[in-house]
């Protein structure tokens, strides 16, 4: 059951991408002029790579709202997974303490019986 939950969580991790993708496709960055269904990269010709990043204050700033939402969803899922794992860890540690006490009791009893 725990493994199934893990699988479901990993699948859910991919979900924000599906929701935010259409909005991102409309991003008005200069390179977004790529035509629909184009098979080759639009921003740079084949073999030429972007090797630097320059800041600019001129571009319209609010198109990344969907990116922000997608990343918030991703981190929410990561932290939810972390919290669940911590709870599982707590439960395992408690179980371990109980088993250790039982083992100590049994071994103590066995030791007394044996003497």
């Amino acid at each position: 059951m725990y493994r199934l939950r893990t699988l479901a969580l990993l699948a859910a991790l991919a979900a924000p991408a599906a929701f935010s993708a259409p909005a991102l496709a409309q991003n008005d960055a200069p390179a977004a002029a790529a035509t629909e269904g184009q098979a080759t990269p639009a921003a740079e010709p084949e073999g030429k790579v972007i090797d630097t990043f320059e800041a600019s204050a001129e571009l319209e700033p609010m198109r990344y709202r969907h990116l922000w939402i997608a990343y918030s969803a991703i981190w929410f899922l990561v932290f939810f997974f972390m919290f669940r794992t911590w709870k599982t860890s707590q439960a395992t540690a408690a179980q371990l303490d109980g088993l250790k006490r039982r083992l100590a009791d049994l071994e103590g009893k066995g030791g007394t019986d044996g003497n």
Partner: protein
Amino acid sequence: MKAVFPIAIALGAVAVTAAHYLAFVHVPMESSMGAVQRIFYFHVPSAWLFYIGCLLCGGASLGYLINRKARWDAFAQAAAETGLIFGLIVVVTGPLWARPVWGVWWNWEPRLTTMSLVLLMFGAYWVVRAFGGSGPGVRRFAAVLAVFAVPAIYFVRVAVNKWGGVHPPAGTGDRSDAIIKATMYNCFFILLFVFALLLIIRYRTHRDALTVRAIRRRLARLGGI
């Protein structure tokens, strides 16, 4: 000690919120790609953490093969799981950038192809560990798989320089603006904290589960179960 992890998890959440502020508010828009470049502040550090997770998994697996101590194996499993989570973030956010910039969601160019191969190898490791049981044979098999998968990270790292393609090179570029570089590294250290926290919690869970199994076996022999 019990209060340490909830506090650390809360700190991690605050730090990630700060990373969001840095990536989406503090840093100016990038001139050639616009808003979509902001993906890089999480995409690139996540890729680095995926590599770190794979390297830790491979190293711990090698340790397990040498000394056969179950704790090494538990650490390898935790590192693979943590690394895979960050690897998934990489492959989910990469296409979000590629669609507006390249015009396609995916391109079988060297960096993406080698990355998907490494992800599949460590995905196979995780499947073996999650569904293959916990016998010594499964542990050895998974450890060997991890050790053989680690060198493939080198090919991901050098793919752009060796074989070209259209993926941007590793890092932010030597001539990138200082604020962009600083934001990238700040986000990396914040995500590194989240990575370490998750790794420690997963490791403790696997280690305790191993001890529980061992004590149960002992109790069964003593007739306590």
